[in-house]
């Protein structure tokens, strides 16, 4: 018996429609945008239809949907691209390393100035912390839509408004929020970066950068795009300018099927189902005074629960649960800033259900945790 409660890393299992889309793509698709033969044209059309599906889901234009390898790839394109000519960057204290590492690298090289805004349980204080850090040369703000450690939902709308009023690019890491809470560029997000293999139910090796086009993003990579091949210069138009090399048509079709699956069920229903499982799990954990759950009543969370069991190292808890067939992510979740912010020096264990998770499995898991 293997039960996955590590869906914040990668959702597993995948919907049947996603599996079928992968097989179909492997059987029918080749390289998009590079030829006029039937296989090439069929693939190009399929990839474009996936752009349309993603664009509709996030409220963008199809040409502003850039397919990437994962969310880290998308965030690097956004951060390194927007900050290419220097300036001041603000990130939140709950960022994943996919934001904090490219930001730190740019700062270490002297190319940019970097500030970190402390996230508070009180959204108003969080917004104020961002506001205080804004300078005349602030070029971009990066904030996760929801923490990958605690699941805390960030005040995206208010931060978007703040950035818009100062003409600052607002980049959102939507890795943990996509498919769980409804996110649209119309909320004021300039660049939304997401993974395809988490809440969007696609396969690994998939992600997207979705932009409103207001802030041009110079490419990190140059190469073949299937267009203007006689020129030695990279095309300037999206999405090809940021899609050098053949994109992963199989993965893209899996993401398309995943998004359609979410739309069919309804994003609110998915959230409600997973949230109910989290709340039940927490109620069970609260029976044990040794357990610390990293949640506060006044804060809204996506369906993620971070906890620790007394002084037991989080990895040891994770290993003990793995022996019983339960898959949970322990340690630091590639989020140095977030754990420093929480004061979790030994990391934490993260519980994250999916649409396929069952409440009784969460109860069984809690019973095992309570025996540790």
């Amino acid at each position, binding site marked *: 018996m293997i039960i996955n409660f590590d869906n914040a890393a990668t959702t597993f299992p995948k919907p049947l429609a996603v599996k079928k889309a992968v097989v179909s793509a492997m059987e029918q698709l080749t390289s*998009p945008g590079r030829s006029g033969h039937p296989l090439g044209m069929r693939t190009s059309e399929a990839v474009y239809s996936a752009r349309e599906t993603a664009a509709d889901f996030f409220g963008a234009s199809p040409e502003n949907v850039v397919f990437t390898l994962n969310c880290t790839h998308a965030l690097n394109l956004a951060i390194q691209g927007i900050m290419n000519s220097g300036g001041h960057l603000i990130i939140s204290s709950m960022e994943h390393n996919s934001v904090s590492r490219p930001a730190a690298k740019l700062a270490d090289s002297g190319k940019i100035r970097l500030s970190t805004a402390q996230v508070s349980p009180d959204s108003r204080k969080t917004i104020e912390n961002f506001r205080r850090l804004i300078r005349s040369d602030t070029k971009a703000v990066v904030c996760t839509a929801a923490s990958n450690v605690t699941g805390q939902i960030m005040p995206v709308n208010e931060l978007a408004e703040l950035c818009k009023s100062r003409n600052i690019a607002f980049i959102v890491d939507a890795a943990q929020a996509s498919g769980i809470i409804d996110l649209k560029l119309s909320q004021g997000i300039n660049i939304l970066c997401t993974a395809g293999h988490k809440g969007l139910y696609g396969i690994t090796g998939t992600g997207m950068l979705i932009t409103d086009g207001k802030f041009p993003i110079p490419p990190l990579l140059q190469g073949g795009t*299937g*267009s*203007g091949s006689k020129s030695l210069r990279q095309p300037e*138009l999206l999405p090809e300018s940021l899609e050098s090399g053949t994109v992963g048509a199989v993965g893209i079709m899996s993401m398309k099927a995943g998004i359609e699956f979410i739309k069919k069920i309804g994003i609110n229903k998915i959230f409600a189902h997973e949230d109910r499982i989290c709340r039940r799990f927490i109620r069970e954990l609260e029976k044990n005074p040794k357990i610390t759950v990293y949640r506060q009543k006044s804060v809204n969370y996506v369906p993620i629960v971070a906890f620790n069991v007394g002084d037991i190292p989080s990895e040891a808890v994770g290993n003990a649960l793995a022996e019983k067939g339960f898959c949970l992510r322990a340690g630091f979740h590639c989020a140095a800033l977030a754990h420093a912010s929480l004061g979790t020096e030994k990391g934490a264990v993260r519980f994250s259900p999916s649409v396929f998770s069952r409440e009784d499995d969460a109860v069984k898991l809690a019973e095992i945790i309570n025996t540790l």
Partner: protein
Amino acid sequence: MKYILQMPSYTYAQKALRLLVAFGYHCELKRRSGDCGYDLYTDKNPDVIKLLSKYKIPYTINEEGYS
């Protein structure tokens, strides 16, 4: 006679194709020879150009045309 519209990428070619078809124009998408890219073969109607401009779809017009 038709317009041959040279599109800067497959993405814009497909976007234009879907737009024009939705507005009732006959439209065909073909790989361009001589320079990697895609052409749209569509009705020679000034409204086609107005439509593409309205939706900010970039193109280069080649009016050689064909029957």
